[in-house]
């Protein structure tokens, strides 16, 4: 049965509430497209969201959804997946939600290698609360709480996930939609912890304070600041490498846990 994005997105709820020029709609459409291409049953998908602009994505979805507290989406998803490994569990987090307040859950979810798909909408600031700096805000950026320029270096989300043990790690931007769709599909299909870091635009806050007053200017910026050569990327200099950073085969948590259950049953039979 052929499926399309409106098997997953509630058409009646459009347009999205996100600001004019925000890239979240592009990411959500790419996710729905991946669901459709993979012919996933809505009842077999659980989308877990945190708090923030991107955390509102579940408002538009007709899959199972669990919208939780700030930073805890991966932890809640861990419980969902642990008790029902057959479910496709997709976790949507912003950079503030997933990498800053939720940073501890992020590295441990990657290390644990439970079969979850994390999709980070990374727009370098807390959009919902007025554009404050986050754990991925590039150094020297201006935000509503770094009006003299941020003095904190950012996380490289992909390098962090990779070194923490994720099975699949990729990055694209909302300008580069084709690779974005490809990586999201690969991430959902991958058994093990997978991450797609999506560099997003926030013309309302980050763009406005950093000399990019429109979404067009921000899209130009993404186009000019990106490279498909991973070795040439440098997040600290706002040079975004697009591509797959990791794609490794290793046993996921649930597969290993079946062995734990066997051993326990042997002990207590």
């Amino acid at each position, binding site marked *: 049965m052929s499926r399309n994005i409106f098997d997953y997105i509630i058409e009646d709820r459009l347009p999205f509430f996100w600001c004019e020029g925000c890239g979240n709609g592009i990411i959500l459409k790419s996710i729905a497209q991946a669901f459709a291409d993979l012919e996933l049953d809505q009842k077999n998908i659980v989308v877990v969201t945190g708090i923030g602009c991107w955390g509102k994505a579940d408002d538009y979805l007709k899959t199972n959804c*669990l*919208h939780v507290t700030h930073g*805890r989406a991966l*932890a*809640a998803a*861990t419980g*969902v997946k*642990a*008790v029902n490994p057959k*479910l496709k569990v997709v976790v949507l987090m912003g950079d503030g939600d997933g990498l800053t307040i939720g940073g501890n859950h992020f590295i441990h979810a990657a290390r644990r290698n439970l079969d979850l798909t994390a999709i980070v909408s990374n727009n370098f600031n807390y959009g919902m609360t007025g554009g404050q700096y986050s754990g991925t805000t590039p150094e020297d950026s201006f935000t509503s709480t770094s009006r003299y320029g941020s003095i904190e270096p950012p996380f490289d989300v992909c390098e962090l996930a990779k070194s923490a043990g994720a099975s699949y790690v990729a990055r694209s931007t909302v300008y580069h939609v084709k690779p974005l769709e490809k990586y999201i599909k690969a991430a959902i299909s991958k058994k093990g912890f997978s991450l797609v870091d999506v560099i997003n635009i926030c013309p309302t806050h980050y763009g406005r304070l950093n000399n990019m007053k429109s979404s067009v200017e921000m899209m130009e910026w993404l186009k000019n600041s990106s490279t498909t050569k991973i070795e040439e990327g440098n997040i600290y200099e706002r040079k975004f490498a697009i591509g797959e950073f990791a794609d490794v085969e290793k046993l996921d948590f649930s597969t290993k846990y079946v062995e734990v259950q066997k051993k326990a049953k042997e002990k207590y039979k």
Partner: protein
Amino acid sequence: MTDVKFLQGNEACVEGALKAGAKFYAGYPITPSSEIAELASRKLPACDGVFIQMEDELGSMAALVGASMAGAKAFTATSGPGISLMSENIGLAIMTEAPCVVINVQRSGPSTGLATKPAQADIMQARWGTHGDHAMIALYPTTVQECYDLMIKAFNFAERFRTPVFFLSDETVGHMREKLVLHDDIPIIDRPFPKVAPEDYKPYLAGEDKVPPMAHFGSEYLVHASSSMHDETGYPNNKPENADKVIRRLYDKIYDHLDEIIITKEFNLQDADVVFVACGVSARSSREAVQILRQEGIKAGLLQLNTVWPFADEKVKEVAKNAEMIFVPEMNLGQMINEVKRVVGDKPVYGINKVDSTIITPYDIIEKVKGVRGDV
């Protein structure tokens, strides 16, 4: 065949949880509750359940909600410092109406405090630890047997009312060893499953008893659950009338069913002039004090609260009616006593309080009673 064992209170909690049908535990190690995690990690996988040690208590409690929404009976155990962190997502469990059981083996605080020493200072934290208006069910065992029996009831209440249930224990009850009968006498209750057609299902539409039937992720029903204010569909609804309806329903679904939830035990109350109201290790000492005082001719009795929250207003009122004076022994500077004072009117109520990290002994209680009565 009914199994008889000699176990710790903490171990009995795990036996009760497994009997109730627990399939998921997520937690973070902390004294004096760690035996619960250790035994759960050994036994849950043997029952097709999953044990997972999370990176912290914030994540543990979030994982509990996820597992519960995916259909598993879920529990965790910690102590006060862990509850401080879990409080965030205890609110999540209240709002998403995710059944789960949270054990707090209380230790001496504040903060890290005295990690290995008992206290009963988290009584109000259990009631109001998470922000916002809400109801809370909290059970408190006094014996190892009650750790088992009440744990089954804690799961039953969680499932029946779709709510997190606190299981307040204390270091003394958690670590003492007593005889435990692993009986089958308590019926096991599962969450109410929807009966409507999948296309008609609204995950937060409740009937008369105010508890919405619960489908899980992966069933034939689609479920939309949210920490944010939502209506019967589970999707956001910010209208004032909706918020009012939801917050009142979440509260009423507990307070409309107090007759099912309040569990107390009475000892020598028929003719008691001196009434103790206590829970946990302090109820044990009170019971002993009742025996000694009666041998000395003082008519004492004990109301043991096994349900701490909601507070047993009616029962406390009833036992206070014919009492001359009421004593509330508790290992804090006075938490439960204020609830007792709230309901007993003009009766004199005296606290017996200890915060030096040692338990209140029967002799501490007797001394206080005699002092107030002028017997010494």
